[in-house]
């Protein structure tokens, strides 16, 4: 009987664990990956991640594949800018001296090619000497046209065998001052970003690897709400786990009670 009790308890804990685990699986199945920009202090856009001043410390740190090229993708925001860092870890000989990383930005969460109308590119002119250009393009019918005014910032640096790219893109800018050639990123909206990698400074022909992701831009006040939501989710999981475990314990007690009753009867 004791064995049955323990099996029941183990079974209930296992079922509980599987159900709770599925919370995390269901949302990520089959869809374009969505990332939330976490809030943090603005990093210096110089292609260097300075750990001594905790740069990018609070960024959402993810690993994704650009086609078959694994990269690290860090996303962060403050009140007025979205920050994205792409890190490409390759053998030194595999880095091309004119490699680039571009962010093609859709004007919504739409992933249709014609909706990607803005491009921010960090183009190395010579990766060995860390010479690069930051380019801001307007895309019209797949044709990359130079913006009249460049907005945002971008930088790149080869650090060992990792090429580090950093971008800063303005959020909630008015449609004046030449911003009409850029995608206007607004609070509370989700935008599709095509992270592109290439080896020759030709766009879009030079793009050899890419991946579309979705990024949600939060209002500064939403930061607290997001934190509260996460805490509530964790608490809910804890409550359901406790109920599951206590139910298992209770079932064992019921089995024991039956044994006791049978003993008293005989």
């Amino acid at each position, binding site marked *: 009987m004791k064995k049955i009790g323990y099996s029941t308890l183990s079974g209930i804990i296992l079922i509980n664990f599987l*159900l*709770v685990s*599925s*919370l995390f699986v*269901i949302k990520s199945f089959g869809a374009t990956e969505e990332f939330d920009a976490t809030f943090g202090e603005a990093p210096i856009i110089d292609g260097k991640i300075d750990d001594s001043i905790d740069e990018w410390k609070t960024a959402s740190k993810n690993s994704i594949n650009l086609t078959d090229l694994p990269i690290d993708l860090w996303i962060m925001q403050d009140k007025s800018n979205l920050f994205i860092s792409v890190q490409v870890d390759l053998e030194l000989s595999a880095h091309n001296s004119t490699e680039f990383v571009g962010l093609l930005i859709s004007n919504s969460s739409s992933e249709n090619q014609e909706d990607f109308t803005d491009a921010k590119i960090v183009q190395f002119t010579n990766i060995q000497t860390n010479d690069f250009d930051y380019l801001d393009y307007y895309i019209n019918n797949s044709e990359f046209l130079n913006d009249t005014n460049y907005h945002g910032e971008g930088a790149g640096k080869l650090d060992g065998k990792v090429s580090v790219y950093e971008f800063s893109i303005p959020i909630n800018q008015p449609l004046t001052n030449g911003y009409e050639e850029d995608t206007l990123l607004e609070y509370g909206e989700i935008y599709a970003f095509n992270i592109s990698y290439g080896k020759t400074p030709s766009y879009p022909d030079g793009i050899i690897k890419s991946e579309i992701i979705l990024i949600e831009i939060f209002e500064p006040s939403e930061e607290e709400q997001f934190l509260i939501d996460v805490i*509530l*989710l964790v*608490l*809910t*999981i804890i*409550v*359901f786990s*406790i*109920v*599951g475990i*206590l*139910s298992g314990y*209770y*079932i064992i*007690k*019921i089995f024991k*009670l*039956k044994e006791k*009753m049978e003993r008293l*009867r005989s």
Partner: protein
Amino acid sequence: MSKIPKVQIKDQKSKTRRRSDDKFAYRTVVISTVLSLIFFVVSLLFNTGIISIFADINLIFDIIDVLIKVIAILLFFLFMLISIGNYKETTGKPLGWKEFLLLFILSLGQTLLNFIVFIITFIGLLIVLVYLYLVQDT
């Protein structure tokens, strides 16, 4: 004239009745536990969003979604309370306020992801408590 004394017959009858009562109480414990666990699983599926077939379609579906969540928790609470109460009765102890409070908190804790469900469940649990208080023997 019977050879068995009247007192002995009375004792046997009393014992048989007690056994029958215990059996009935145990059956109630088992059935109530099974029912409460069924409603717990329903609550887990809906309140954590594993199943969200009724959410964000229109107002009527939203109401159905909230009702399923609330009813699942209230029935879990009610059946688990009956089960624990009968279990305690079978073991000869009364249901203490600690068990009562724990069950109340764990029921309410299932609603944390939805404020409307939290409020309605809280009111529902209070009604159940008042009802149980009124129907108990004074």
